[in-house]
């Protein structure tokens, strides 16, 4: 299980989406890391990667909308972090489409996705939750 309770920010919409995001990332990692021969699982690798990428975009949009709704002060900085990450992943996938989806390059990508998401949800997103809580207190 990749999702951990300490990743919760206390906003149901975001927490549920984070759970789903980690679930999709976890299936991608499991396919990448299983013992099946690379040629046989390549289609699975690509489809689980795609499945996760789609959800990243969907989730970032919802999370950014939520931040605007509550008037989150660090919205711009957060939006930029999302944009940079999306661009990096797209560039990575584009390169692999040109040069081939090798096991090594996919493993590198999986590691990058995992560490970025844990750090982002574990730190940057926590501040959204803290702000949302402080705002409730004022109302």
């Amino acid at each position, binding site marked *: 299980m990749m999702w951990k309770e300490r990743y919760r920010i206390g906003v149901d919409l975001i927490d549920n989406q984070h759970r789903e995001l980690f679930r999709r990332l*976890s299936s991608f990692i499991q396919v990448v890391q299983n013992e099946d021969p690379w040629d046989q699982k390549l289609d699975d690798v690509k489809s689980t990667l795609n499945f996760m990428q789609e959800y990243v975009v969907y989730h970032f949009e919802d999370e950014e909308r939520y931040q605007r709704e509550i008037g989150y002060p660090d919205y711009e900085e957060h939006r930029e972090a999302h944009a940079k990450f999306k661009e990096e992943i797209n560039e990575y996938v584009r390169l692999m489409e040109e040069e081939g989806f090798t096991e090594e390059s996919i493993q590198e990508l999986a590691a*990058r996705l995992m*560490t970025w998401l844990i750090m982002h949800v574990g730190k940057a997103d926590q501040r959204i939750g803290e702000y949302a809580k402080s705002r409730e207190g004022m109302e």
Partner: protein
Amino acid sequence: MKVEHVNAFYVATQEVFKTMLDLGVEKGELRIVEDMVSSKDANVLLGITGDLKGSILFGFPNDMALKMVNIMSGVDMDKIDTFVSSALGEIVNIIGGNAVTSLSNYNYMCNIAPPQIIVGKYKSISMASERSLLIPLNTEIGKFDVNIFLAETKNED
């Protein structure tokens, strides 16, 4: 090497281990070593440039490296493959980034080079003839080393 420079890396290591692995990190007895050697199974070398110039070498034993990636991924790992070594490289990269940010608060402007991952023991990688500081660190899932060599390039005013 100044205490605050070394401390920036130690504190960043503690913070990143807490956020990413939910692990506390405790410092052991510091030592001065003559040579920077990759003495563990999975080693990550981080180059520092700018007002401070040098290298930071993280060395993780096999079981600890696998356990770290298991904590993050929820998947059992049985060998140090590209996924595991890249994940360690990313962790060190984040530690380096945080340390460099905190050094900038002391007015030391530095950059980090992309981490190099060295799998396998006893490959000497020291490029500096000077001695470095070895910090043994303890966690619940194992012990690892951080080797630090930093020289100031900045002229003192």
